């Protein structure tokens, strides 16, 4: 299992030397207990839940403890349904879960954006297509599900409190209607794609609701007029109001939605199982990963059922899920091509061989730092740049995490060819890979060490010949830098296999 970086040379040697039969299982357990696991899961789920950030949000995800929250959730192996509940309810109980509110808060009072981003998590679906009409292809996805999910969040509002950002919620308002393409109007009731429904009494037409402290568990609403309108939800970019604490209504739509999504919702488990499977295999049992609808059948339905049931019964135990999948024979297959009985190449959905998994931006960036042995200096700079700068540069070039089809871009190749960032990692510096290679006595030793470090294997004969020949025709420094460039930009390093 590759968490977020390749094995160091020492780790690899230890694994090869270990004669124990269960050495792979033990290695998996070691990795699951490591910081790298928590970091990798945090990076993956940051992107899954939040997408790639606009620049202004990168720092706030950090300062508002969103990263810390995710990191902790995976490190402590908190039950996935609890985590999802906290994201939806967004009323932190202590300091540890303070970051949970950022999932809603960053969407800046846009309930549609919130609905569209929670749907892949709780339904395994993209629901955007159902905004204007029932889904044209997957007919079971109704426009009412889209607007029902939106309504779960349309009484909520960002506020700033002495304890930081929070989401207040009104006890009234948010009774909106939506129209289909034929302009037939329908109420946005709390009806969800998993078949659950929350009954609410709708005010009669023309009746004005009155807000009152009786409707709240804590703190009265900031201003009744703000939320008690029948306007369609729209994006409000205003500055969040400063109040002492968020209002918590006795009937909270967010809490009601959270109940419907995290208790007896088999779709939650199926979506997570498919996501983790896709993370580990490079392709979901349902593909694309968040289109788990009637038009995208699972390639191994029994397997998906079994894993989802096991995940649910285990109390939504994420580490158990990862461990189970990593210990399968399927996960440990080699990447070499195999043929089916009739002599045709096995299709990817059979998982008959390990599939290509091009590294994500974060994996690539971490892997390059580990392989080139560049570490932060006293000023916290790595080869002259802050970690944040480097990360941002890679994320810009490699934004995709679960692409339905992988396409390398020419811009990526240009980045590797001419960006100073990679070049600076290859410049010899005390303790880094380039300087280590330069200290070796012969070109052959340099090539061998470069291969073992970058690819985790010694060079084959023809590779050794070509690379030694290459070094012989150049100054040691130019040769070493270019040799490392040629290995680090190659598919053997950049594709998980």
């Amino acid at each position, binding site marked *: 299992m590759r968490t977020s970086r390749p094995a160091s040379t020492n780790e690899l040697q230890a694994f090869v030397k270990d004669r124990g039969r269960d050495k792979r299982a033990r290695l998996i357990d070691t990795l699951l207990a490591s910081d790298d696991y928590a970091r990798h899961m945090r990076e993956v789920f940051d992107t899954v839940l939040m997408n790639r950030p606009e620049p202004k949000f990168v720092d706030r995800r950090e300062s508002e403890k969103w990263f810390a929250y995710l990191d902790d959730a995976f490190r402590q192996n908190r039950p996935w349904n609890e985590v999802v509940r906290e994201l939806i309810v967004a009323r932190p109980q202590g300091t540890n879960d303070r970051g949970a509110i950022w999932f809603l808060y960053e969407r800046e009072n846009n309930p549609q954006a919130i609905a569209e981003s929670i749907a892949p998590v709780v339904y395994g679906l993209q629901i955007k*297509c159902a905004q*204007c009409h029932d889904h*044209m*292809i997957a007919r079971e996805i109704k426009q009412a599900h889209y607007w029902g999910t939106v309504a779960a969040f349309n009484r909520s509002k960002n506020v700033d409190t002495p304890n930081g950002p929070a989401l207040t919620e009104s006890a009234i308002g948010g009774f909106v209607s939506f*129209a289909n*393409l*034929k*302009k037939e109007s329908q109420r946005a009731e709390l009806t969800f794609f998993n078949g659950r429904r929350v009954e609410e009494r709708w005010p009669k037409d023309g009746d004005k609701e009155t807000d009152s402290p009786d409707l709240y568990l804590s703190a009265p609403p900031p201003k009744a007029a703000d939320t008690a309108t029948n306007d369609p939800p729209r994006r409000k970019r205003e500055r969040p109001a400063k109040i002492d604490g968020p209002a918590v209504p006795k009937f909270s739509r967010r809490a009601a939605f959270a109940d419907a999504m995290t208790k007896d919702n088999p779709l939650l488990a199926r979506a997570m199982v498919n996501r983790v499977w896709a993370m580990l295999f490079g392709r979901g049992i349902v593909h694309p990963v968040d289109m788990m609808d009637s038009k995208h059948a699972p390639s191994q339905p029994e397997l998906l059922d079994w894993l989802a049931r096991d995940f649910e019964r285990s109390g939504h135990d994420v580490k158990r899920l990862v461990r189970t999948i990593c210990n399968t024979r399927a996960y440990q297959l080699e*990447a*070499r*091509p195999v043929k089916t009985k009739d002599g*045709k*190449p096995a*299709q990817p*959905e059979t998982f008959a061989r390990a599939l*290509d*998994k*091009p590294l994500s931006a974060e994996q690539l960036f971490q892997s390059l730092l580990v392989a080139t042995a560049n570490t932060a200096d006293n000023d916290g700079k790595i080869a002259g740049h802050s970690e944040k700068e480097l990360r941002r540069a890679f994320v810009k070039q490699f934004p*995709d995490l679960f*692409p*339905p*089809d*992988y*396409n*390398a*871009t*020419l*811009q*990526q*190749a*240009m*980045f*590797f*060819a*001419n*960006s*100073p960032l990679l*070049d600076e990692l290859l410049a010899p510096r005390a303790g880094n890979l380039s300087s280590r290679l330069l200290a070796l006595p012969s070109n052959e030793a340099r090539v061998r060490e470069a291969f073992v470090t970058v690819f985790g294997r010694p060079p084959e004969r023809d*590779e050794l010949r*070509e*690379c030694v*020949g*290459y070094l012989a*025709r*150049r100054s040691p420094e*130019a040769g070493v830098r*270019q*040799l490392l*460039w*040629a*290995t680090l*930009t*190659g*598919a*053997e390093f*950049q*594709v998980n*296999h």
Partner: protein
Amino acid sequence: MRDSFSNLPDPHCGGADHTLHRRKFLQGVAGAGALSLLSWGGLFSLPAFAEQAKKTEKRCILLWLCGAPSQFETWDPKPGRPTAGPFGSIKTKLPGVHFGALMPKCASIADKLAIVRSMKTTQSEHLQGINLLNRGADPRPPFIRPTLGSVLAQQLGHLDNPIPNFVLFDPCPEGNEFKEFKASNWAGWLGAQYGPVRVGGEYKIENVARLADISAEDHEARNALRGFLTKKFENERRSAAAASQNAVFERVKGLMSCAHLFDLEKLPVRDRERYGPAAFGLHTLQARHLVENGAPFVMVANGMPWDSHVFHNEIYQLLVPEMDRIIFNLITDLEERGLLDSTLVIAMGEFGRTPWMNAARGRDHYPNAWSLVMAGCGIKRGVVVGATDEDGVDVAEKPFNEKNLFATIFTALGIDPYATYDLPDLPTFHRVEEKAEPIRAILA
């Protein structure tokens, strides 16, 4: 200093003048004798020859009107009918032919255009429609048919062309149904080397300059060493991801040599004013500049503004005049430069729009009867083919579908429309299935 392993074909990528299709050259223009006398770079430094080569190379610009434009305000107005909308129609250079009144400039060059008013397709959703009109056939999973651009890149381009064989300009990399299409596999079974080079939003390509600490020779040798190591990996594993990466690394040198062609700032201010100020026009200008310099296929995608489910008239009042000006400038510029006869221009979306307005004063998706326009290479000038009924509800004569369209495009560019793909392990596929007829009335 040359390296033993880099005995790859040396493309002599001299720059922008290297525009000849090498294979065609070998077939037609000269014999092997000429080759032994002249280096490729030398050949193209002869101005007369380079000029001649440029003018006979076939190329194509696709103005992709994503979101699907309405035929009523553009190529097929219905004056006086309830479906007409408020804008009316105007006479064109062609007797008896009217365009929407928002298109005076295109009306003045109608004698250079070919209008198809009888497109009739079946997909009414964006993603499916975009796939249909870019791939020319219904999907047949798990096989992925290449897009038009990839087929033309393969047929009109050559892999050692320094200019990318397929350039995609896209002003809006995020946020619509086109996004999902864009994330898909454009080149399909042709392979990653025929996928698009995407240029989006920005008007230049980054990281094009070689760093000072490496010589040009070493830059190339280093890439060749990379290729040697990673090709082994690609072949042993039959790794599609590795193939995709290797395909783009092979284009680095070419793109570095022609990156200036992508720099909008280098184009005359007057041109930028004529095409600008918005991305669609500026990208069209860049497309013109690229084909002038030998790019075989450029696709200019136009966000999704045409998808006017609400406030149709208000939106089209802005959009149509812009498109009118852009198409006019492109066609007249190409003609002035002597390139119209060798450049096929196509402007279309994935379907048309409804004859009736919805309650939100919008027009919805309508694949049943719609229009598109073509001009240039292999296309008759000043012709209208097909017709819809008086309200534009259905095709009244000569319906054409995506297969007819693709057969027309291939024929116009001198490409066999019915050739069989050479695909071991796959079923038999043709460039155009079912021997669908081209639209003969518009073929020159």
